[in-house]
């Protein structure tokens, strides 16, 4: 390891120094714009070699680990350029200049040397680094003219910012009518003035007759108002919206969605919706929740919905089937592997509870807990995510009433559950009572399922949930 401290020369060497002798020195003072001789054909700035500065501790070489910019990018002073590493120290190298990156002297994993060029930056011609560089366009107004301008003996008032704006645009303040207090010239006035120009900024000619527009306080009798008074017209400037479109490739979870949904398109969907009175179920769950908690399980409504669906599928097995690719055969699946749509940070996933037909409501709750915690940790396995035969989507936890769910192939039916709302309903005696109402929206594959089947299944499912005690009769 070399411990000899390198005295890094941080002075900048200009490429142009070789070529300046070509020009007559006196010519520098008169010329409008200096174009320096350069090898690059495209631009007009000055190339500066930005050297890798001293890291400290006698370090002479580092490894380039990451570039934050590429050739052609523009950088501002203090922007990060690259990350280098030396002996357990990671160093962020920032730019000393504003300009455009023209050359990267190293690739990733190359060894870079302290004191040697790291990147070449082309500095903006107008922000010349060296005093010798003279970029002079049409001669600007001299300062004096802008500090106190007088129109017919009156001083014009304007803030320094406004004066600068006028100076940058070669506008004589005397030509602008101020609309501010005491005829103060505002920024809007300058912009108005510019808007009225043809577009080109003409260098003011001292000899030209300039007739300033009449000021507000002056009255011109007999002349029509709109000519005499200069009413400040708001200039409709395009609103500077800095947002840009952003295009990204479709990857990951989105890709999975694209595949699934494109396949789902082939299925002719029909919908069937209904409303369920969950008043009794809500009460039942309240009673059972503490019991489940004692067993260490969180009991939501889903286990009931899932078990009721499975009971329904026993009566209407076509809803738990699968149609083959050629629509030649229907396979009636023996297992009720009911999928539960889950919203995770990365996107939508649908794990399923296996063999609901032999599970108790509590078993389903346990399994749901397991799937939910794995899902949020991003650790669901392939077996959890495959083999589903029927799906329920509890979109109501986020919101909504009716929905139009999309069937997940190779399944043939899906149900979307809306949120539970407290709504007034009539009971058998014609009295209004508070009911806990939830909406369900079914979608089914019309190639093998007809409306009547879907309706009957839904009615059965609904009856189990509206009268939970009836589930007891049919539980296996």
């Amino acid at each position: 390891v070399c411990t000899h401290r390198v005295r890094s020369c941080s002075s900048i060497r200009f490429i142009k120094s070789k070529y300046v002798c070509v020009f007559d020195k006196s010519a520098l003072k008169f010329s409008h714009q200096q174009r320096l001789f350069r090898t690059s054909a495209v631009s007009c700035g000055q190339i500066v070699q930005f050297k890798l500065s001293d890291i400290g501790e006698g370090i002479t070489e580092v490894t380039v680990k990451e570039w934050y910019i590429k050739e052609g990018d523009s950088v501002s002073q203090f922007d990060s350029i690259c990350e280098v590493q030396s002996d357990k120290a990671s160093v962020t190298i920032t730019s000393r200049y504003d300009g455009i990156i023209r050359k990267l002297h190293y690739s990733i994993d190359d060894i870079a040397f302290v004191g040697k060029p790291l990147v070449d930056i082309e500095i903006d011609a107008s922000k010349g680094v060296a005093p010798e560089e003279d970029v002079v366009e049409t001669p600007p107004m001299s300062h004096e003219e802008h500090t106190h301008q007088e129109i017919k003996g009156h001083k014009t008032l304007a803030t320094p910012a406004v004066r600068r704006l006028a100076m940058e645009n070669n506008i004589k303040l005397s030509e602008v009518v101020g609309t501010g207090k005491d005829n103060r010239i505002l920024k809007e006035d300058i912009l108005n003035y510019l808007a009225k120009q043809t577009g080109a900024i003409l260098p003011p000619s001292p000899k030209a007759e300039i007739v300033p527009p009449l000021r507000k306080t002056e009255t011109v009798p007999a002349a029509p108002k709109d000519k005499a008074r200069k009413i400040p017209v708001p200039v409709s400037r395009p609103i500077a919206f800095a947002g840009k479109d952003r295009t990204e490739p479709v990857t990951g979870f989105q890709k999975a969605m694209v595949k699934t949904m494109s396949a789902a398109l082939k299925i002719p969907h029909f919908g069937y919706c209904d409303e369920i009175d969950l008043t009794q179920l809500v009460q039942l769950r309240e009673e059972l929740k503490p019991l489940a908690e004692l067993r260490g399980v969180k009991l939501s409504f889903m286990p009931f919905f899932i078990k009721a669906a499975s009971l329904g599928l026993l009566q209407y097995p076509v809803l738990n089937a699968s149609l083959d690719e050629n629509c030649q055969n229907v396979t009636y699946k023996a297992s009720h592997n009911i999928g539960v749509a889950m919203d995770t940070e990365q996107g939508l996933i649908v794990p399923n509870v296996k063999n609901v037909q032999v599970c108790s409501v509590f078993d389903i709750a346990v399994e749901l807990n397991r799937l939910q915690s794995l899902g949020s940790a991003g650790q669901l396995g392939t077996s959890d995510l495959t083999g589903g035969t029927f799906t329920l989507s509890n979109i109501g936890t986020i919101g909504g009433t009716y929905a139009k769910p999309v069937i997940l192939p190779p399944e043939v039916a899906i149900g979307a559950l809306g949120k539970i709302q407290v709504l007034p309903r009539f009971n058998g005696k014609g009295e209004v009572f508070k009911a806990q109402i939830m909406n369900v929206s079914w979608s089914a594959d019309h190639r093998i399922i007809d409306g009547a089947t879907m309706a009957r299944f839904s009615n059965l499912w609904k009856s189990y949930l509206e009268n939970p005690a009836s589930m007891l009769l049919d539980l296996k």
Partner: protein
Amino acid sequence: MVLQSLKNCLWLSCILRTPKACFWSTASGGLIIQSVSNDVYQNLAVEDWIHDHMDLEKQQVLFLWRNSPAVVIGRHQNPWQECNLRLLRQKNIKLARRRSGGGTVYHDLGNINLTFFTTRKKYERMENLKLVVKALKALRPQLDVHVTDRYDILLDRQYKISGTAAKLGRTSAYHHCTLLCNADKFVLSSVLKSPYKGLKSNATPSVPASVKNLFEEDPSLTSEMLLDAIAKEYAMQHQIDHHITVINPADETLLPGISNKTKELQTWEWVYGKTPKFSVSTCLNIAYKDSVLDVKVNMDVKHGRIEVCNIDLPEQWLPPGLYSELVKSLTGSKFCPNETTTLVTTLLRVCPQDDELHSRWSLLCENMIMLM
């Protein structure tokens, strides 16, 4: 300054801890702060914040922090190469990528972290480590500890008790190091052993070392004693009051912008996406029916995403259409078991419903996922 009541805490007797109100108005020369949080991301965010926002010209800063179990990799390292990601996920141990260079370390509450903030010009690691050694020796003169030229601190000339890393910016710099007091060596060695084979990369490799806890040497020591001894030495050398200011890394008013920094450190793009380009070249041994298939797999991973994917399957083992769908799906997606699981299970939905096919598919995909 508000003095908290110290009567209950004997071990605080020589230290004054002040609340955040006077965080910025301390005496010149130096500032010692300690984090109340054990969250590795929050604490790393504090380092970033100080590095980006504090003017270290007038005062240097010593930051003391400890984390609940986490593996911390260096800026330019490859987590697949450095640790057992599967074990981390199982045990719920966090993975963080710090902004400084260097190798991989395991943190738990038995490890203390020290960060020395200075201006870029005053960056000097050896001095800092010598300060630590001096503090340790002041506390226990019989401890055989010394600093190596690799910026490690060794106990008894053979066991590493501290590793170092540093970050240099335009105007400021920091040097941080660990100090093993009472860390779980069993977990440490198991998480820092990578099971992933066939990885080739230019990422900074870690240099494994035998480690020992200071408490094994002297069971009378506690983390607090060590923290105090180091704070005391720092205070002495910087000629400041020996008091430690406690800060809360979740305090947005004290540290404006800190929650964004904390969030950024937890993104997949930072933790995994900043891995230098690497390739995976391995052979899956898939036991199928009565035979074992040797399936060669070659993948290039850039920014944590699969750029190129080649799986050498026996012909017709999978229908060609499905095979190309698999490769197409994997290309461009994250080298991540969760994402891959989602993709491959989705593909299963849209292919022929054949049990044999499904079992082959699941077998292959599960083996692929094991590589991640």
